[in-house]
Each structure stands twice: as C-alpha cells, then as structure tokens.
C-alpha cells in the first residue's frame, strides 16, 4: 500500500480526437510503465470498436509510478473514462473515484460540446482541473485563443494551461509534475470500515468478472468476504491487483487506491456501477451516495435477416447482456420481420455499439427497426403504461394522453452554420433556451423531444454544419404532447415494423416523406403497389409504386446459360436480404432508411 500523500488519482476529459488516448499512452510510456517494445497505439482502448471509433466505452485504468523532480516517488492512477453522453452515468462514477482531471483540448480546434458535458461532471465531482492544450506541434495550433475560450466557455482559469504535443512528447514532463503538485492527494481512513466504490466491471473469459474499485475507506485484502450493498450478494475475493496496464497481483488495496478484484463472479449484471463494496462482517453502515440503476432510454427491434439465425441472435444477445447491465432485451414478434428482440439502450451510440458487436463478433446480419423512445401512456382509468414499441400502442379509446421524454441539448457551432442549426432544432420541435457566443462560435441550448433526436438528428447536424457542430444532451423529464401512432401500409397491409409515433402537427409531413422514401426503396414488382401512411383508419399520404414494365435480357444464347444461371444465384442471395411482406419484397435497409428525413 501507498500512503495517501503519495497518491494522485486523475481522469482525462477530452472531446473525441483531441488526443486523450495518445496523451495517456505518452504518460504511460515516459514513466517506463510499459517497455517501448510493448507499446501499441492507444493502449487503453481494448475493443476493436473502441479503436475504430476512437472512443472509450469501458472505463480503463492504469497505475503509473512516477519519480518527481522533488525526489519522491508517486503513484499516479489514471482512469480513462467513457467519452460519450450515452455513458454519462458511468462517467460520473469514474469522476467520483478520482480527485482531479486533465482537461485536454485540441489547440487547433477548441472546446467542443462533449468536452463541456464531461468537464461539468468533473466540476460536479469537485475536481481540481488542469487544462492541457494538445497538438501544439501542428501549424494551426493557437494556444492563446483556445485558452481564452476555455475561460469564456467553461469558466475555469486557463493561465496555467500546459502546452503539450502528445505526438512528439513535448510537455509530457510538465504534465506529470502538474499532476503531482496541482492535484490534491486523496483522503480516506485506513482504520474505518471498508467502503469501496464499484467504478466499472467487465467479463474476462479466464477470471470471470473483473471489478474495478476505488477504496474510499478501509483496506481490502485477498481472501476476504465482501458484500455488494445494492443486492446484498456476498463474494469471496480471490484476487486483488492493479493495472500497469497489464494486471499485477498485490496483497491489499488501501484508502485512495484504485485497483481490481475478482471473486468468481459469473455475470457483469451482478456488479452494478456505482455500487458500494464492503466487508461481510464489520462492514460499513451506509453506502456511498449517488448509485443509480441503469435505465435504457432508446429502444429498437433487432431481427435476424435470415430467420433461421434467430437462436444465434438470442445466444449473442444473452452473452452481451451478461457483460452490460445497461442493455435490456425481450422477445418480440413482428408480422413483417418474424421473431426478434426489442432491445433497450442508454443511447444511440450504445445501440450502434451493441448492433455492431452482434454483427461482427457473432456474424449475424441484422435488421434494425427505427429507434423509439419510452412514452408514458396515461389511460382513462388513471393508470400509466410505458410504451417501448409503437406497435404496442393501446386502443385510443382507452388513452387519455401521452407524455414524451425531453432533453436539454447543448450545441457548439461556428457562426456560419448557426442559421441552419437553429432551423434544424426548430424543425425538430425544439424550444430555444439559450444562445451565447464565445469568439466566432455560438453555443445554443435547446429543449427538444428525445423522439426527434434519437433517429438522425446527429447525422443531420453534422451535415448542415459540415461536421463542425458538436452536440451533447441530457434527459430533463417528461412532457405531455399531441402524439399519434402512424402506420405504413404497403399493398394495403400494415407493416408493423414501420409504425412510428409522431407529433400530430408533423404527421402529414413525416408520412409524406416516408411513403416517398419507400417508393424509392422498394423495388418495382410485376404489379403496382400502393404505399400509404395512415393515422387510425385515415390515410394521410399515399404514393403508388408503378409496376415493372421492362426487365428482360435481350440476348441469351448457348454461351450465356452459365453466366445467367450464376447471376440468378447472386440475385437469390440478394433476395435473402429482403423481407417478404404479403406479396411484396421489402429490402432490409428500408426499415431504417424510410425514417431518415432530408430536411
């Protein structure tokens, strides 16, 4: 164990691409924690998807021994936090586990919306914050402007900002010194009952669930029996250690320290982020404050493209759920898509990550239905139901009113694109709450229905701002609004997987856009196909897909038979990517593409 005065625990707050992982790599490398030959880029991002997207999904940690200029050796614990709003709760727990943050800002870019969200989390956790201006080796670097922006937008003193190039290593030593001298040491009582916060957990095929903990008070030793205070489950600790970043066993973890434990836990579900761990006997009385169970906010259907893969899909979803307590699922049957699952996610990124993992790690092609939020349906009898799937909308005669979730969205955007961004927010039923300027960039805050954001808002925002706008949001609550279920009928039959909840005032526009899109997405058939949008029994938009008029090969002789037969086989494989609905084949991408709005 290390005495408190020689421990520094810190997180790195940064926007995607501002160089958080590279800086972490440099810190690890320059202290000799990892031999140069073992160094690979972005050491802490373990999953393929994390590497590819340049984001961190699971909290990672590394313990660094650093001999400072004052001659003393310090233990520096870096927690690499998830960098996305979907994982805001996980971030908040990671922040509570450390005392300070490095705020990394790309000196060629400036502050972004996601930086803001995480820095506010750090401020909420009473962190000491050291601004780090990165990428000073680039010609476009403008440290003075960015420092000023940090002071304007975030409101913290940036005069002592450290200028760094994580790429060349310039400023790394200064950063390490600042961690030691500007960040506070942790506090905690060694002789108090054990109180450890569960920061994160994940499944390892050899060791079972690995639990990342921060010891607040007391001492945790190998062989002890511990209790997870939320579900009162008892476990026998069989391993304790720290990450360097490889796992290294140690005998005990004392106050202020960050490390891991294993206790033959089979499911990540049994280890809730934010939970308090204490001893079975002589444990602490009160858990640490702030625990919140994970609450999915975005739901969608996942169906196998090939119906025979349903069991494989079930298997993959169950396995992923073991390792992700925030992901929920239940079986769903759709007339259009057959058997699948209705799944709940923390947000859109979470949805994409899970979907990608199923497709990639389990090799199952998926049809993803339109993401939906959770509506509150108030019945005439005074009861309230949660609606996760538009297909389950109760009969209107029994419904009194509906409420939908709202968010507070913060968008940072250069001046030039502000007009388009405001129009986008207005079009999505937004209410402007704030509009301020920092230099040539505007910060707009909108109250928006989550429903209007879950689908393609972020894509649209990127597109209207040429990629310059950054965006973050937090849920604010529920509000009543005039919402209706819109059905899509193809060839006069309702296609349940295309049903959506829409605001009544926007129903006609949305309906028109959807039937027009579907007209382009569905290939022409040998007969004409009406495509309609309807609310209740009333058709509000209609298109007709005309019948195929000509599709015949002009020349087909003896030398063409083999080629044509192979072409037919290829087309058959393509047809497997279609769903037959009544007499009509609907391509799988239609279920998502139909909902995208171009304006």
């Amino acid at each position, binding site marked *: 164990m290390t005495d408190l005065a020689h421990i520094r625990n810190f997180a790195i707050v940064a926007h995607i691409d501002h160089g958080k992982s590279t800086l972490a790599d440099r810190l690890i490398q320059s202290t000799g924690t990892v031999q140069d030959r073992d160094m690979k880029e972005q050491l802490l991002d373990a999953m393929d998807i994390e590497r590819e997207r340049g984001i961190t999904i699971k909290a990672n940690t590394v313990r660094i021994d650093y001999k400072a200029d004052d001659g003393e050796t310090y233990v520096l614990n870096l927690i690499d936090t998830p960098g996305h709003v979907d994982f805001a709760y996980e971030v908040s727990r990671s922040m509570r586990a450390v005392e300070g943050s490095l705020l990394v800002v790309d000196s060629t870019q400036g502050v972004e919306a996601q930086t803001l969200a995480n820095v506010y989390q750090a401020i909420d956790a009473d962190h000491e914050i050291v601004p780090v201006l990165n990428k000073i080796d680039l010609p476009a670097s403008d440290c003075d402007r960015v420092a000023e922006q940090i002071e304007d937008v975030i409101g913290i003193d940036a005069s002592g900002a450290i200028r760094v190039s994580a790429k060349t290593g310039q400023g790394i030593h200064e950063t390490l010194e600042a961690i030691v001298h500007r960040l506070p040491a942790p506090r905690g009582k060694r002789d108090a009952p054990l109180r450890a916060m569960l920061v994160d957990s994940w499944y390892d095929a050899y060791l079972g669930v690995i639990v990342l903990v921060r010891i607040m008070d007391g001492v945790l030793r190998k062989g002890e029996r511990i209790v997870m205070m939320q579900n009162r489950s008892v476990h026998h600790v069989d391993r304790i250690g720290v990450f360097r970043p490889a796992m290294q066993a140690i005998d005990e973890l004392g106050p202020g320290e960050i490390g891991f434990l294993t206790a033959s836990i089979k499911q990540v579900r049994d280890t809730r982020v934010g939970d308090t761990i204490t001893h079975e006997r002589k444990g602490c009385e009160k858990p640490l404050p702030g625990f919140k169970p994970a609450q999915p906010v975005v739901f969608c259907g996942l169906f196998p493209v090939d119906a025979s893969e349903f069991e494989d899909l079930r298997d993959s979803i169950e396995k992923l759920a073991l390792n992700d307590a925030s992901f929920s699922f239940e079986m769903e049957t759709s007339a259009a898509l057959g058997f699948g699952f209705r799944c709940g996610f923390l947000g859109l990124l979470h949805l994409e990550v899970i979907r990608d993992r199923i497709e990639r790690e389990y090799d199952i092609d998926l049809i993803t239905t339109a993401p939906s939020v959770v509506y509150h349906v108030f019945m005439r009898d005074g009861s309230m139901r949660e609606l996760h799937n538009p297909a389950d909308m109760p009969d209107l005669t029994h419904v009194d009113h509906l409420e939908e979730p709202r968010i507070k969205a913060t968008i940072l955007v250069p001046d030039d694109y502000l007009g388009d961004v405001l129009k986008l927010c207005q079009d999505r039923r937004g209410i402007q709450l704030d509009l301020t300027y920092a230099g040539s960039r505007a910060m707009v805050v909108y109250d928006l229905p989550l429903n209007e954001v879950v689908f393609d808002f972020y894509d649209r925002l990127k597109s209207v701002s040429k990629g310059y706008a950054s965006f973050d949001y937090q849920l604010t609550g529920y509000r009543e609004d005039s919402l209706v279920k819109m059905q899509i009928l193809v060839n006069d039959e309702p296609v349940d997987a295309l049903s959506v909840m829409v605001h009544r005032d926007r129903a006609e526009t949305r309906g028109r856009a959807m039937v027009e899109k579907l007209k382009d997405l569905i290939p022409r*058939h*040998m*007969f004409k196909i009406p495509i309609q949008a309807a609310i209740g029994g009333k058709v509000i938009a209609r298109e007709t897909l005309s019948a*195929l*008029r*000509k*599709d*015949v*090969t*002009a*020349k*087909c*002789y*003896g*030398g063409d*038979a*083999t080629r*044509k*037969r192979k072409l*037919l086989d290829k*087309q*058959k494989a393509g*047809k497997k990517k279609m769903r037959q609905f009544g*007499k009509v084949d609907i391509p799988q991408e239609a279920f998502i593409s139909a909902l995208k709005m171009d304006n």
Partner: protein
Amino acid sequence: MADDRPVGGFGLYVHWPFCQAKCPYCDFNSHVAREIDQTAWARAYLSEIDRVAAELPGRILSTIYFGGGTPSLMPPDTVAAIIERARQHWPASNDMEVTIEANPGSVEAGRLAGYRDGGVNRVSMGIQALNDTDLRRLGRIHTVAEAHRALDIARNTFARVSFDLIYARQDQTLRQWRNELTQALSMAVDHLSLYQLTIEAGTAFGARHEAGKLRGLPGEDLAADMFDATQEICEASGFAAYEVSNHAASGAESRHNLIYWRCGDYVGIGPGAHGRITVGGRRLATESPLAPGRWLHHVGRGSGETVRTELTGREQAEEHVMMGLRIREGLDMARFAALNGAPFGSDRVGRLAELGMIEVADGRLAATRRGRTVLNAVIRDLLAD
C-alpha cells in the same frame, strides 16, 4: 444414344474470334488481330471436331452455326472443311441447317457463294441500324448502302436469310424506330433478330455509361413502348416473335438457336465457346479459354476444352426455365419436374398466371407477351427458393 427429338436436335457451334474492328456495345468474345495463321486455325477446328466426335458417336447432327467475332472473315475453304469433317463423324439430318454470321462490310459475292458451295445454307447479317449516323455511333464500319448491297447478295445466294437490328439506341424516338422497323420488314427475307441495346459491363459503351457520358438512352417506359411496338408491327407483317428478340416467318425459325432455348445438346468449339453435352447420362457444361492464342495452344496439346462441369438436376431445371420461357412455345413442365425433383409450386404458378405473366396449357408453361417483357422478374419468381 440420347433421343434428341424432344429437345430440338443436336448442334455444333463454331466460334471464330476475330473482327476487323471491335464494336463498342459488343461483349462477345472478339479480337482484332493483325495476322492470322489460317492453316493453324483450320487444323485446330478440325482437331476439336475429331476429339468431341469420339465422345459423342452416332448423334444425328441437325445444325451447325458459325458465330463470332466475324466468321465471314473465315476463308470459305476452312468453313467447307469444318462442315465436311462434321459430316464425316456424325450422320446429318436431311434438312441440316448450317448458318454463318456475316457483316455487311466483309461480304463479297464470291465469298458468300463460296460458303454456300461449302455447305452453308443460311446467313445472319449484322446490319444493326438503317441510318449511317447511328451505324457510326454503334461503331459499325459499314454504311446503309453497303448493308443493302450485302443483303441483296445474301438474298441471291441463300434461301434463308436473317439480319439483326439494334434498337432503343441513343436519342432514338418511338416513331423513328417504328419507321425503321417497317422499312426493315420490307427488306426481310424470312427471319429478323431485333435486340434492345444493352449496356454491358466490360465494353466501351459500359465504360462510357459508367462515366455518365452515354446520353440519350431510353428510360424504362420508352424501352417498354418500343418493345411493345416491335411485337405489334412484326406480328402484323407475319413475323411474330418466337423468342424474346427473334422473329420469323412460320417455319423459318433458327433451328440452331432453338436447341439452346429447348435445352438440347450442343457442342461448342473455338475460343470461349460453351457447350452442353450429355455423356453417359450426365449433362456437362463445357468451356474453352477465351484468348485465341491460349485456345490454340490447348488444342495443340490435345483439347481446347478447359472447363467441364456436371450440371445437377436443379441447375438443369433452372436453365430450362431461363431458356425455355424465352420462346413462345414455353417449356415442358414434366421435364422440369423430373430435373428439379419437384414440380413448380402451384401457388407461384397460379399467382403469375393471375397477373397475366404466364400461361399453362397441355403440360407446357409459357410466358405471355406481357410476361416476356419482364421475363427476368418472372424467372426470379418461379425459381425463388
């Protein structure tokens, strides 16, 4: 010995791969060569006939077809020698049809007569268009005047003459095509092949199309109107379609091509030629190398056939549908069921019949005229798993 009668006989296809110039729409196996060793090529074809005949003894040969490339660039002696060698190996049917494809520019009176004297009794001329501007756009090296002259020579030399036209060309209107087709029918002898211009990948047109530089091609509606007009005008002149793109006076259908559409046996020799032969009860698909030099090399070492694949019953059944629905007479449902191991799904057939795409009568299933215009969709539907 296989009984060829129900499947239209047994034919020999001879591929001559050379052209004077490559046409920008053509995806056939054709090459422009500076010098051709005629003796070596003649020897190679004869050697191939010997090889195949040894495997297929006693079959009654009903057709020979010289295709290309431009086979009317072949020396008449070579053509005569090939016909003679085939007759030596196989008994010929009394009315054996021997066709040669010819380009108007390469036709001389003497040469056509030479082919006739060597045993050719039918010619198929690649006229393609009846105005010079379009002929140039199609990359053809002949003119309309030359086409007329060549056709006159052909008519005077052979009793059976066909010619090809390509329609749905760049900037072509429906009216222009109706006029051109009417004119063509007035010139026609007993057979016409009328192809809609198809942009094939790997051709000059394909590349231009991909680059967005091939303008004025008709959309689907105009193409469909042109196809419909073609059917009407030809029918009214006694040249009803007996296949998607082929029209003939009654009894003047290409017997050789019918072998393909009826899924009969045919031997294919020459670079890139394909064959379908039944040997010992197994139906085989054969292929030869595309490059002329490589083919010649393989023949020199014993066999120009480099790929031989046995077709499964299902594959044969699929070919039966793909080919058989192209012809007006349709296909034999019992033969399909035997090959496929199961008949067509009755609901599928019923639905396509209800939509007016197919007709079922006397154990045969045929595409209607309407069905033929969207035949690819009909075939996909019938053969869906």
